[in-house]
C-alpha cells in the first residue's frame, strides 16, 4: 500500500477534559492548604499567599520593597546567611507582589523540605529590614529602572496602562525614581506588620504532595504563630478615561513599539470566554490574522500578538508589536483593517474550526503537570470561581458561532474606543 501524503491522518477533536482538581486541607490554625499532588519526581512548590498587594499600600513601591526585603535579614540571620541556608538545600525562594497580593514561593526537593521551612517561618516572624541592604536595593532598583526606560517595549506598556486605567490608579500606577528614593525602612516595617504578620490568605502546594508532606507543612505553618487573614473589604475605584493617541519619541530606534487597545472586562463577565476565542483569531496564536497578514505575508515584524490581561478588579485588551520604523504606518493601517474585517465579515467555517481546535489543545497543555495545574487553580482563586468555569469553557468554545463573534467585535473592538501608543523615531 502506498502512503498517502496528500491528506491528513484522522484527527480526533477534544471532547471533554479531565482536570486534576486541588484538594482543600485545613491546617491546625485554620489556614487553608490547597494541594495538587501530581508528580512522580519528589519536588514541591509552595506558594504562601498574603493580602499584601499594591492595593493596600500607602506609598508607591512600599508593597514591592517590603516583599523584596523579606529575604534581607532577620534578627538571627543576615541576608547572606539566609541566602546561604536556602541555597545550601538547593532551594529557590522567590517573592512577588501583584496588584492584589504578595506571594512567597519555595521550590525544593521534598527531602529538604523540613530543612527549608524553618527559614520561611523565620522570615515571616522576624524580618528586620536592615537599612544598609535597603539602600543598596533602592540604588539597584533605580539603575534597573533606567535600563528599562531604554526599552521601547517597557515604555509602550507603561504609557498604555497609564492612559487606559489612569495614572494614579491600581493598574496604571508606576514608581518613578523619586518614589523609589523616598522609601523608608519604617514604611516597610509597617507594611510587614499590617499585611504580612496579620496572617495568610491561603497556601497552595503543588508537585509531590502526599500526606506526609501535608503534615510537614502543618508542623511549620499550621502553628498558632500564624493566622488566617484576608481583608475582604477591598475597594477599587475604576477611573473613567478617554481613548488616547500617544506618540513617544525615542531617537535612534530602528523599530517602533506599538500598543493599541482598550480597557475590557475580566473573567467574571459572561462574555469573557467567547472574547478569548475572538482574541485568539485576531492575534492569539501563530495562525492568527495579525501574524498571517503582518508577519507571514508582509514581513513587517518578527512578532505581533493580541492579548487580554485580566485582573481581579479590571482588565485590558491590546495588540502589541515592534515593527519596522519606516513601514509602521502601513502596519497600523493593516491592524485597523483586520479589526474592521472582524466587525464587518463573518469568520469562515474552516478558520473558526481551526481556532477552536487550537484553543482546546492549548487548554489541554495548560493543565499538564502539577505546576500548570496550580496556575489554573490560582486563576479560580483570584476571580472567585469554581472548576465548573473550566469545564464550561470547553462547551462555550465549541458552541460559539461566527455570528456571535461578529457581534462581540462590534461591541468591544470599535475603532473609536481604542487607545493607541507608539514609541519610536519618526
Amino acid at each position, binding site marked *: 500500500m502506498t*502512503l498517502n*501524503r496528500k491528506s*491528513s*491522518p*484522522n*484527527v*480526533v477533536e*477534544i471532547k471533554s477534559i479531565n482536570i486534576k482538581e486541588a484538594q482543600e486541607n485545613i491546617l491546625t490554625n485554620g489556614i487553608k492548604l490547597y494541594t495538587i499532588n*501530581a*508528580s512522580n*519526581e*519528589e519536588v514541591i512548590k509552595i506558594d504562601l499567599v498574603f493580602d499584601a498587594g499594591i492595593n493596600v499600600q500607602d506609598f508607591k513601591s512600599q508593597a514591592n520593597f517590603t516583599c523584596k526585603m523579606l*529575604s534581607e535579614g532577620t534578627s538571627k540571620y543576615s541576608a*547572606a546567611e539566609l*541566602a*546561604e541556608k536556602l*541555597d*545550601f*538545600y*538547593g532551594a*529557590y525562594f522567590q517573592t512577588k507582589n501583584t496588584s492584589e497580593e504578595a506571594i512567597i514561593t519555595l521550590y525544593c*526537593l521534598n527531602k*529538604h523540605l523540613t530543612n527549608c521551612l524553618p527559614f520561611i517561618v523565620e522570615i515571616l516572624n522576624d524580618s528586620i529590614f536592615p537599612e544598609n541592604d535597603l539602600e*543598596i536595593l533602592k*540604588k*539597584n532598583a533605580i*539603575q*534597573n529602572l533606567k*535600563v528599562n526606560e*531604554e526599552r*521601547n517595549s517597557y515604555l509602550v506598556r507603561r504609557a498604555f496602562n497609564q492612559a487606559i486605567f489612569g495614572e494614579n490608579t491600581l493598574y496604571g500606577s508606576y514608581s518613578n525614581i523619586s518614589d523609589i528614593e523616598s522609601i523608608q525602612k519604617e514604611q516597610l516595617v509597617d507594611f510587614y506588620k499590617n499585611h504580612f504578620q496579620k496572617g495568610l490568605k491561603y497556601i497552595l502546594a503543588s508537585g509531590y504532595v502526599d500526606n506526609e508532606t501535608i503534615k510537614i507543612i502543618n508542623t511549620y505553618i499550621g502553628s498558632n504563630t500564624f493566622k488566617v487573614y484576608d481583608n475582604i473589604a477591598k475597594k477599587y475605584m475604576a477611573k473613567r478615561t478617554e481613548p488616547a493617541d500617544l506618540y513617544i519619541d525615542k531617537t*535612534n*530606534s*530602528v*523599530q517602533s513599539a506599538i500598543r493599541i487597545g482598550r480597557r475590557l472586562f475580566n473573567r467574571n463577565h459572561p462574555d469573557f470566554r467567547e472574547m478569548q476565542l475572538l482574541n485568539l483569531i485576531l492575534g492569539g*496564536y*501563530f*495562525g492568527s490574522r495579525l501574524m498571517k497578514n503582518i508577519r507571514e*505575508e*508582509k*514581513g513587517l*515584524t*518578527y*512578532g505581533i500578538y493580541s492579548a487580554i490581561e485580566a485582573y481581579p478588579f479590571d482588565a485590558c485588551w491590546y495588540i502589541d508589536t*515592534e*515593527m*519596522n520604523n519606516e513601514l509602521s504606518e502601513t502596519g497600523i493601517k493593516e491592524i485597523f483593517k483586520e479589526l474592521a474585517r472582524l466587525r464587518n465579515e463573518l469568520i469562515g467555517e474552516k478558520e473558526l*474550526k*481551526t481556532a477552536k*481546535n*487550537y484553543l*482546546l*489543545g*492549548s487548554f*489541554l*497543555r495548560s493543565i*499538564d*503537570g*502539577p*505546576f500548570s495545574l496550580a496556575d489554573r487553580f490560582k486563576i479560580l482563586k483570584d476571580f472567585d470561581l469554581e472548576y465548573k468555569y473550566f469545564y464550561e469553557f470547553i462547551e462555550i468554545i465549541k458552541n460559539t458561532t461566527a455570528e456571535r463573534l461578529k457581534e462581540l467585535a462590534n461591541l468591544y473592538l470599535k475603532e473609536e474606543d481604542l487607545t493607541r501608543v507608539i514609541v519610536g523615531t519618526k
Partner: protein
Amino acid sequence: MIKYNQFQLANGLHIIHHFDDSTQLCVLNMLYNVGSKYENPNKTGFAHLFEHLMFGGSVNIEEFDTVLQDASGESNAFTSNDITNYYLTLPANNIETGFWLESDRMLSLDFSQESLDIQRNVVIEEFKERYLNQPYGDVWLKILPLAYKVHPYNWPTIGKEISHIENATLDDVKTFFKNFYCPNNAVLVLAGNLDLDTCKTLVNKWFAPIPSQNFVKPSYSQEPKQNEARTETVYADVPLDMIVKAYHMPARTDEKYFAADMLTDILGAGKSSRFYIDLVKNKNLFSELDAYISGDVEAGLLMIEGKLSKGVSMETAENAILNTLEDFKTNGVGTNELTKIKNKSETNIRFNDMTVLNKAMKLAYAWVLGNIELVNTEANSYLKVTEADIINIAHQILIPTNCSTLYYLSKKNDTK
C-alpha cells in the same frame, strides 16, 4: 531516571522513545545536527533563516501551522551554534498528524522565492528587535569575534550582519536543505503518552520511505589556544557601563565541563554567590554581576558580565572581579559551598525533568553529544566533581591570556 528505547531506520534516522502516561500529550522532537557553525563565514545567519522557512509549507502540505492547529497542536523551533531543533506538542491521540507534518518537511520543502523574501524580512526585524533595539542587545555581536578568531562560533546564530540575511538566495536554501535536512543527519524523539509499538509503526510508516542523502559537512578550523589578553571598548546609548569577560572553557563532552559549570555557580549564581555577596551587596560596585557558561557542544565560553554601579570606574570594577577570582584560586572552595552547588544542580535537573518536552529535548541533545545515557549520568557527573577539580579548572582557564574583555560604556554624562 529517564527510561527510553532507541532504534534506527535503514535510512539512518535515529529514533528515541520515552513513554510517560501521566500526561495526555505527546511531543515529537526532531533535531537536525546542523547549526550556525556549518555556515559559510560570508553567509552567516543562514541556519536560523532556514529554520523559519521550515514553517512555510512542504511538498504535500501547503500550510504547516493550520494542519497542526486543526489537530489541537502547537510547535516551535530554535537554532544554536550546533543544532536546529523542532518540536511539536499534540494531544497524544493526534500524534500521527505530527508524523505527517514532520516527515513531509523532511521529504521536501515547498521552495518559493516569495516565502524566502518574506522570511528574510521577518528575520531582519528579529535581528533589530533582539540585537539592535535593546539596551546591551549587541553584546554577543561584539564579544564573539573577540574571543574566536577562526572557529565559526565567532558569529551569533542570528548572523554577523543584516546584509548576510538580505543576500540569501533560493539556491542557497536548496543546497542547505539537500546537505543537512536528511534522515541520516537527524534524531527523532517521541516522548509522552504513546506506546512503543504504535511509535514503531508510525515511524516506519512515515519516515522509512524517505531516502538518505550523501552529504559532506563543511570542515572548519579549530580555535588555537588564546595567548594574549584581548580587549575592546565600545560606546552606546545605555544608562550604565557594563563589563563582559569571556574565558575559553572545555567542550560539553569533556569531564572538566562540569567543574567549569559549578565554578560559575559558586561565583555568580544566586544571592549567596561570591559575586553577589561581595561585589553587589558588600561593596556595591555592581548593580548586577553574573557568571555563566555558554553551554556549547565544542569548547565554549565561561562568561562574567556585570553592570557597574553609577560612579564606579571600570578599572575599580574589573580589579574587584579579578581579586575575587584570585582569592578563589588561592583559598579554594568551602565544603559547604561544594555541597550547596551540588544540591542546586540536583534541584535544577529534577525540576527540569518534570515535563515531556524538556525530557524530549534532553534526549535529542544527548544523542548529538554521542551518548544518550548522558541524560541519566549527568546528575552524577556533577556529584563526582571535587574541590580540587574546581580549583584546577579555575587555575587553567581564569587567566588573563585566556580572556577577552569588552568594555561597554555609556555615552551619557549622567552623574546620578
